[in-house]
């Protein structure tokens, strides 16, 4: 048994260097050359200022912005504390929260939701950083956003449609709307003069 001790120690070091240093180094080098934007986190800038990552959701509470899903990451969309609620299906608190959120959404939508509301609107995502909402969720918020921006509902609706991504390659995943990119477009298409940084065209 002891005859295998020396190879055990040396093999640990050799493989550690190969797979723990050389391999990630090579991947990083290739990433720098071929996909530098993605490797650095798909950061998004407005007027030269980085405002976030296209892949990471951020909190929005003002009426003129589309709101993301509820988040359990830290105090909400904390990108150093990704997490879901991990509440189970028979959890009383979760059931209550769903009900409150439904009422909240009805209020913030400001025209009363008559039917049921989309399942992503009142549930927290797995990462707490979900950058997307469902198209139905976004459409329900159009009236509020249009009113707050003094814009035409139909024009805002068209903006949502333009930002609705279908399933990838036609059948992978679900249709979705990226909240940050939609809100940046809303700022530039229907600027809130004086309130946010105007991005005039």
């Amino acid at each position, binding site marked *: 048994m002891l005859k295998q001790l020396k190879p055990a120690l040396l093999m640990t070091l050799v493989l550690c260097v190969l797979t723990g240093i050389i391999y*990630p180094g090579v991947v990083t080098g290739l990433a720098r050359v071929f996909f530098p934007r993605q490797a650095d986190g798909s950061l998004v800038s407005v007027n030269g200022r980085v405002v976030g990552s296209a892949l990471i959701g951020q909190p929005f509470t003002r009426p003129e912005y589309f709101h993301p899903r509820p988040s359990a990451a830290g105090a909400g969309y904390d990108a150093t504390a990704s997490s879901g609620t991990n509440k189970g299906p028979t959890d009383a608190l979760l059931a209550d929260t769903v009900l409150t959120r439904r009422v909240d959404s009805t209020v913030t939508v400001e025209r009363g*939701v008559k039917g049921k509301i989309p399942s992503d609107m009142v549930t927290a995502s797995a990462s707490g950083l979900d950058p997307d909402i469902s198209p139905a969720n976004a459409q329900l918020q159009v009236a509020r956003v249009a009113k707050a921006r003094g814009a035409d509902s139909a024009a805002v609706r068209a903006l949502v449609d333009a930002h609705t991504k279908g399933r990838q390659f036609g059948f992978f*995943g679900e249709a979705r709307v990226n909240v940050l990119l939609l809100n940046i477009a809303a700022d530039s298409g229907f600027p809130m003069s004086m309130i946010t940084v105007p991005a005039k065209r």
Partner: protein
Amino acid sequence: MTMNGWLQIAFFCAVLLAATKPLGLYLVRVFDGSLRFLRPIERMIYRAAGVNPDEDQHWTRYTAAMLLFSVASMLLTYAVLRLQHRLPLNPQHLAAVPDRQAFETSASFTTNTNWQSYSGESMMSYFSQMTQLAFHNFASAAVGIAVAVALVRGIARRGGEARGRLGNFWTDLTRATLYVLVPMSLVLSLAMIQQGVIQNFKPYVEVTTLEGAKQVLAMGPVASQESIKQIGTNGGGFFNANAAHPFENPTPWSNFLSVIAIFLIPSALVYYLGRAVKNVAHGWSVWAAMFLLFLGGVGVTYWSEARGNPTHAARGVDVVASATNPGGNMEGKEVRFGVANSALYAVVTTDASCGAVNAMHDSFTPLAGLVPIVNMQLGEVIFGGVGAGLYGMLIFVVLTVFIAGLMVGRTPEYLGKKIQAREVQMTMLYVLGAAASVLVFTAISSIATSGLAGRNNMGPHGFSEILYAFSSATANNGSAFAGLTGSTYWYNTQLGIATLVGRFALIVPALALGGFLAEKRVVPASVGTFPVSGPLFTLLLIGVVLIVGALTFFPALALGPIVEHLLMGAGRLF
């Protein structure tokens, strides 16, 4: 359930089936030594480590080498985690990992479990992630493959001339890493980065959001670790939210690549078995058993999640999927994946001993949460972990042959080798070791104050959290009903021990079985020989797997997810 959901699942199955034979043939050439294009690097490694690559090791020596390598790498990781504050590549100045978590993490990554009681973005430096956790992702996967290959050699070697010898652990380990794991990971890393997975060594990026708030974006060398985490069925995420985190799994396409990567090697190894024992039909029959068990799991999970939570439906949530609404139970799921991809991922990751998650299993409906628990309790034999799945399933194959032999009253044979007392003792040691670890640890935590304190949910779901944890640790899966607070002395030590039991108390009997079989002469097949290929064998194998699992775990499952399902239907909340 939607047509589109099933279409994605069907596409997954088609790609898996298409890849199995080519990759299996490649594995045959890797492990018979005929593939030599990386020979110079291989030689360098053997020379540096002082290994004689031509030595054919007896099973005891092979086992000793495997154990010593595992202990050495585990100790190295414990040391690095404890000292990470003094080591480079720590731009966030993260402190040393506490002793209990350093123990559990090093045990967990050495055993291919990758249970995370820590949150990656707030506790692990880039150096620890890269040189230790990613290294273990390769090493533990390579060890699993080596053990499976050794067991198959034991079965395949003819005429007793092998005298219990199973090959060379060091060459198997090296070749699995060089020819299989590293190239596959390189390709997958680049594909994942193209989709948006990050790969850098920068400090965390602070941005001012549109509404003027501060948001700090965690960074790191994610892609290089993400790819081997899937390919090696390791499952330990770079971030706390694992593959649900958009920087680990940004798009539906990256999700597909991740989930197929989990099954590629386990599936190909089954084909490898058929080739190596010169009975391809046997390989496919075992594959079919795994595939049918997998399909059953996907069906139940997808159905249950698509139905959604009746409690939420009663509160005005639209659980019916449409082109604009994902529907179903979206608590703990990401919009880009929706219900079908989350269900598929959950079943694949627990069939294989991967444990990566793209949705929070803790928030699944009870029957959808039941499937991952059962998958792990069956011993991760539905394709299973790289290597671990095959040697686990071979234990059940031997058991099946033995039971079939008893039924017809003949000495059972497996591929011409008599299955006798010693072999059956090893298989039973394997089966009982796993069962004891899951049930005894769960029972202790279910009555002890420290155990009960960790729950995030009350009622039967709280019990399910504990049962899930020890099933996952013992099966070396590493996924969790993550509400359970695992970062306590109580859970860190017990889960750490359960991972070690689940790995080494099962590998040693598996290698012993290989050694015993390699000592046996082959007896020619006769009319009384039970055929190990064809539908009858496949169904019998499925039956044995399910019956052993059900007899062992049904009472525990009844107390957790099953009773929760009934109570949820009655509208009972906790």
